[in-house]
């Protein structure tokens, strides 16, 4: 059982939680992830580690409410517990002094790009960061990203904050304006964003690292549900990744795979909302004076 020590609402659908997990915090490195379960009926949910505090024995998780499990997770409050927090899983990011690098975080991907950005900066790189989201409300951690970036470009799809652009637009300009200067690019965000970042850098031959968020169950190499097709053969995201060379990923296959359970996800949300409504009705009924309840039946 891992208690939640702090909760921040970063946007309507983006929540931050600081969770007690000393064994994970002790070993966590940039680029790694954990698997959490909310309770005994819960899925095993992979989440990238956004930050960790070894001394305090805590890790920071940031997630976007996209389905039943993440929506339910969003209802947890300080003092509630996760049934499981296991990790750190996956390979850490390869950090060294490359020279000038670009770190791109899209939407909730800003969370996992942060510890990588910080580690790259601390390793002596010149770091140019790009963070983007659909709209202003979905942006967060601009200040933290700025603190570890030599240059920070902020953009939104709708222009409600920063520059009105997709993250690939400033990236392309950087690649054009500073030929040969940029040694490596990291991109974390929606699969489709990572695909287009990889397509953008490919003609320039700049190595591009993406962190894949696939469907997985155990996270230890046992199920193979997270397998991704690279030009060099199949790999497991949970043990071989989650970071891969974006130029080698079969993106269309990956985009199909991450959508596989879409219908069941809808069903799970409906079932959960129905249960929540029932719970609320029961709670309301229980709160009512008995006479009134009986009266309503009459």
């Amino acid at each position: 059982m891992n208690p939640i020590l702090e909760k921040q609402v970063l946007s309507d659908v983006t929540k931050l939680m600081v969770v007690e997990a000393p064994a994970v915090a002790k070993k966590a490195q940039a680029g790694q992830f954990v698997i959490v379960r909310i309770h005994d009926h819960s899925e095993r949910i992979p989440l990238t580690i956004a930050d960790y505090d070894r001394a305090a024995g805590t890790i920071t998780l940031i997630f976007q409410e996209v389905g039943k499990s993440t929506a339910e997770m969003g209802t947890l409050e300080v003092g509630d517990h996760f049934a499981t927090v296991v990790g750190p899983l996956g390979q850490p990011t390869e950090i060294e002094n490359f020279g000038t690098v670009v770190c791109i975080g899209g939407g909730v991907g800003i969370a996992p790009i942060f510890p990588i950005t910080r580690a790259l900066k601390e390793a002596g790189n010149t770091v140019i960061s790009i963070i983007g989201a659909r709209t202003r409300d979905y942006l967060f951690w601009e200040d933290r990203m700025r603190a570890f970036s030599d240059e920070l470009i902020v953009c939104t799809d709708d222009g409600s904050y920063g520059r009105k652009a997709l993250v690939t637009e400033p990236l392309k300009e950087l690649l054009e304006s500073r030929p040969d200067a940029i040694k490596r690019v990291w991109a974390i965000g929606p699969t489709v964003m990572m695909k287009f970042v990889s397509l953008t850098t490919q003609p320039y031959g700049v190595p591009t690292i993406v962190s894949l968020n696939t469907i997985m169950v155990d996270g230890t190499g046992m199920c193979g549900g997270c397998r991704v097709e690279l030009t060099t053969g199949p790999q497991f995201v949970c043990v071989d990744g989650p970071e891969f060379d974006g130029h080698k990923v079969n993106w269309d296959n990956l985009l199909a795979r991450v959508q596989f359970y879409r219908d069941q996800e809808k069903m799970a949300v409906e079932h959960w909302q129905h249960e929540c409504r029932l719970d609320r009705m029961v709670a309301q009924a229980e709160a009512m004076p008995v006479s009134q309840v009986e009266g309503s039946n009459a």
Partner: protein
Amino acid sequence: MAKKEIIPRKTPMPEQPPAERIHNFNEVPFGYTPEQAIAEARRCLECKRALCMEGCPVGINIPGFLKLIAEGDFQGAINLIHEANALPAITGRVCPQEEQCEGVCTLCKKFESVAIGRLERFVADWEAAQGPLPVPALPPPTGKKVAVVGSGPAGITVAADLAKMGHAVTVFEALHEPGGVLVYGIPEFRLPKEIVRREVDYVRRLGVKVVTDFVVGRTATIEELLQEFDAVFLGTGAGLPWFLNIPGENLNGVYSANEYLTRVNLMKAYRFPEYDTPVALGRQVITIGGGNVAMDAARTALRMGAEKSIIVYRRSRDEMPARLEEIHHAEEEGVQFHLLTTPIAFHGDETGRVKELECLRNELGEPDASGRRRPVAIPGSNFRIPCDIAVVAIGQSPNPLIPRTTPELNVGRGGAVVVDEQTMKTSVKGVFAGGDVATGGATVILAMGQAKIAARAIDEYLRTGVW
């Protein structure tokens, strides 16, 4: 002694009728009644040389416990089994008896063997019905600490044995529920999870600490465990699924058996959406492979509502490695078998979902290294079987996570950790291994047998310090 009357056939075990059981996950056989058990045990010829005992990988005193059952002394029978086997309720259900004790039973030269497995199961279940197993008096603590990595059959066995020797044992399990393959792999209808929980509970009552959600190799390395513990036992099993490496294997709807079964068994996808983890539902499910895992997957598919469940296997029925009973149960339930058939490609629809498996027909050629006749593909015999789910159940090998993070650990062919078979010692001082991680993938009973050897060797190492 008067010559014993021969009863040619096994006492049938009552079970759920096939048409009923394919709609539920309850265990298929109900087990013997005491009367049936006594009648069956009396079939034993009490041979002078007990071949059955020689056929048992852990040397259970089989004639002894059969005789006690025949006399109605069930407590005596289970006590005798416990001397050699810590998990009889489990092995009675999952052992390939026809290749072991029952396969060499004198009766089966002409008739059916004594149903040793069913009787082992009967007394184990009888004992469980009497209430929780009493914990034996434990010796004074030795002050030595042992880490057991993995809570499957090997881990549970070694932990129990070491605790009974007075050592302080901590079991580390990567998943959220202990039991290893017994909970993630073997379905409820073949091995009720209640039995596994009971065994784990017993180990806990012996004073063993069970830590779940702890991935050795990640959360802590073997080197780090050795700083805290005097010895380490690796019982991490064979969790790495094999794939066919044929075109289209990454299409949606193509599962490893590990994933398909883990979703249904451990994550309880059969109760979705009450449980959050989904599994794809298919009208026509193909399972590729001929082992127990393949039978489990094909039968699970029926219970998940498949109209048609098909096994595709490249050799013939005689070469199938699955237990006879599992093949028989699968056939009874209507699983169809495409034998002598080799898959060569998956084909998908425009959304990336699998829709067909392309295969070649085989004929049997010369025997291969395993002594089984090699399947040889007939050129041009290509044909396609429609499917909306395909489960690849062609085997698995040890998970490389610990070897990758323990460079000094010697690993042999197929990723199996190299051990000295007399002691189960690995190449790293203080580290022992047993079960599928050492064999590359075998049976529950072999894992337990190795765990017992390891427990004795660990005890000796802890007492003498001699490696």
